[in-house]
């Protein structure tokens, strides 16, 4: 009996230590992501290229932290979900930051697979849970009304139209999901308030005949080539 319990003791001690390792990495991840988010926020008042460079500068360290998580989990096959709660919130925030950046850059939606690729993750070992990804998209949506308000204040009158189209598509896409009455459903419900606010700004701009006006000025500064140009 003694031998057997010696093994049990080893196993229990081991589990406790894995938990502790992951807890520490997740805490580092938490601090780090706050920095990234802080680097992204000036987008409300600064030019995009400046912000983009700063945020992208964090990517390799971020991948490093995820690699640490994946490394620990790799040795414990099948235990991703045993410890999943430790990095849920952080991952959603990462998705928020990367999806915002990607949209600023391309005007398109960062996909689930692209997110994993950006983070150098092998989904077979350590992927991004789908719900975490979708919640990240909701956070991204929540930031857009403020972005639109500030862009218009800065004289970019075409921004509301673009955001309204994008957000409308996202809302329509989300509506095709059959969500249970859970956290994700609540977060999704919030998107329509974002869309409503953006629509109100678009209305303000239209009613005043400002639409398409300032874009001429924008042209003057030579930023016409793609969607992202208006975010500079």
């Amino acid at each position: 009996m003694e031998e057997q319990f010696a093994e049990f003791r080893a196993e229990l001690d081991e589990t406790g230590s894995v938990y502790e390792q992951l807890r520490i990495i997740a805490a580092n991840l938490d601090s780090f992501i706050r920095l990234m988010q802080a680097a992204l926020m000036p987008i409300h008042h600064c030019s995009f290229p400046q912000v983009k460079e700063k945020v992208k500068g964090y990517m390799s360290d971020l991948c490093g932290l995820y690699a640490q998580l994946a490394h620990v989990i790799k040795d414990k096959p099948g235990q991703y979900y045993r410890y999943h709660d430790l990095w849920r919130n952080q991952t959603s925030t990462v998705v928020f930051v990367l999806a915002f950046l990607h949209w600023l850059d391309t005007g398109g939606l960062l996909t689930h697979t692209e997110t994993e690729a950006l983070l150098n993750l092998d989904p077979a070992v350590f992927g991004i849970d789908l719900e975490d990804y979708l919640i990240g998209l909701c956070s991204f949506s929540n930031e857009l009304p403020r972005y639109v308000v500030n862009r218009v204040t800065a004289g970019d009158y075409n921004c509301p139209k673009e955001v309204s189209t994008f957000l409308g598509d996202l809302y329509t896409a989300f509506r095709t999901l059959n969500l249970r009455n859970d956290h994700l459903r609540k977060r999704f419900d919030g998107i329509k308030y974002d869309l409503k606010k953006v629509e109100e700004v678009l209305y303000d701009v239209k009613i005043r005949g400002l639409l398409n006006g300032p874009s001429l000025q924008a042209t003057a500064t030579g930023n016409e080539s793609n969607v992202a140009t208006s975010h500079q």
Partner: protein
Amino acid sequence: SNNNSGTVSKRESVFCQQFQQYAQQLDAVNEKRERIVKASRDVTTSSKKVIFQIHRINRANRGAALQQAERDLHAVQSIHVRRVAQELKANETWKYKRAFSPGMQEFVEAATTLEFCKTGKLLTLQQLNASLSHLKDVSDAPFSISTGDYLLGVADLTGELMRLAISGVAAGQREVAIAVCGFVQALYKGFSQLPNTVDIRGMPKKMDLMLQSLIKIENTCYAVHVRGLEYPEDMIVNALEHEEIDSDQEA
């Protein structure tokens, strides 16, 4: 000890015979409850899908999407609500109430939401039960939804209408919000005049939620109204006209 265990065996059979009857009764009740619960969960899930489908309606797909929702709702009724009905004898409805109430409430929510989208009116309990009267229970009496389940379902309708009002405004259909507002005000008034009965569990909490939804709808109408005042009506129409078509196509 031998003697003892012998006694035990003998006695066991005496008691167990009585208990076999009890076991049969309990099993019958539990199995029936389990079947009703499952049917009710299916009613809930499929009704929720109808509601989701209604939220996907926009000006462009309105005709077809409404018809689809109607067909779906009819399927819920003729497939899953029927399963509930077929389990019940007339005098058993209260016995299994907790097993099927959630489903019926969600069904009422879906049916009344659809009716509002079609006609702008409240689907009454009489109308609803008339549409169900072809569903017979075990004793061949027509199946019907109780006042309590109807009221709780209609209370939830308010939340869906709030969503419709806000996404309506988000899609530039400001008239939806105004129609919803008057309707929900009338509903809330009706509810607030009801006596406070112990029979309908959870009503006070639902009334609170209803008021919260109503206030959100009122705030939306307020915003629409206030915004509309800054420029003369015709100027607004001009500015938005071709855009509206645009937003139809998008949605």
